[in-house]
């Protein structure tokens, strides 16, 4: 991947992605954080997700253009996987906000811990997790290449 003039630095992109991954891992461990922090981390997830999507805009536009070219089936599948990640993340965050016990009431918004919305939240979390894994797998070569700069030479020789 060559550096394009005006393109954000790879270190910045990797930092945002790492933050997202750490947040997701913490969100998947509510027994470690407790429900209160779980909800605040969920609210905090919105900003890095937005930044991640804005940073990926060029890929999104290119993928949409290529999606329906028959010879580029892989592009279509990747677009579908990423679209499902967006859908599942949205469902998880929105349902999480709807059943919020701490974060939204703290902001003055009354909520009901509705079991239908809770089931949606729990089920789609598993779906989202699978698509996160697919997303990491898809971008693995780029991640490994950029992360390689931060591994000290002496460690690479081990």
């Amino acid at each position: 991947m060559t550096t394009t003039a005006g393109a954000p630095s790879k270190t910045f992109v990797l930092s945002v992605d790492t933050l997202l991954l750490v947040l997701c891992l913490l969100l998947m461990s509510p027994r470690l954080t407790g429900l209160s922090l779980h909800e605040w981390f969920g609210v905090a997830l919105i900003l890095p997700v937005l930044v991640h999507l804005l940073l990926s805009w060029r890929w999104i536009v290119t993928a949409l253009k290529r999606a329906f070219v028959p010879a580029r089936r892989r592009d279509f599948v990747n677009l579908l996987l990423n679209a499902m990640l967006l859908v599942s993340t949205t469902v998880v965050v929105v349902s999480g906000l709807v059943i919020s016990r701490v974060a939204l009431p703290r902001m003055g918004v009354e909520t009901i811990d509705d079991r239908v919305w809770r089931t949606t939240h729990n089920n789609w979390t598993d779906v989202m997790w699978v698509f996160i894994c697919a997303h990491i797998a898809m971008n693995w070569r780029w991640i490994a290449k950029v992360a390689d700069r931060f591994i000290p030479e002496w460690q690479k020789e081990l």
Partner: protein
Amino acid sequence: MNVRLAPSWRAAAVRSLLLLGTVILIAAVIYLIDGAPTIVRKSRFDELVLFAPSLGRGLSELATETFVLIGVTWLCRDGLKIRL
């Protein structure tokens, strides 16, 4: 370190609005499916108690999720050949 999110602030705003529109659309669909939250369907469990922070159980959960993440990612990469 270049941290530009878009070519201009206007472009960033337009793109953010497009994303917001997509999110609202997805949220509307799920709202139509699940319906408005009602007191009749209120959960019988107290999630604040259920997810009371515990270092032992919490670290075990974090380790499990990390293991699942690594395993499923490996399966996607090597098994399903998902790549750019």
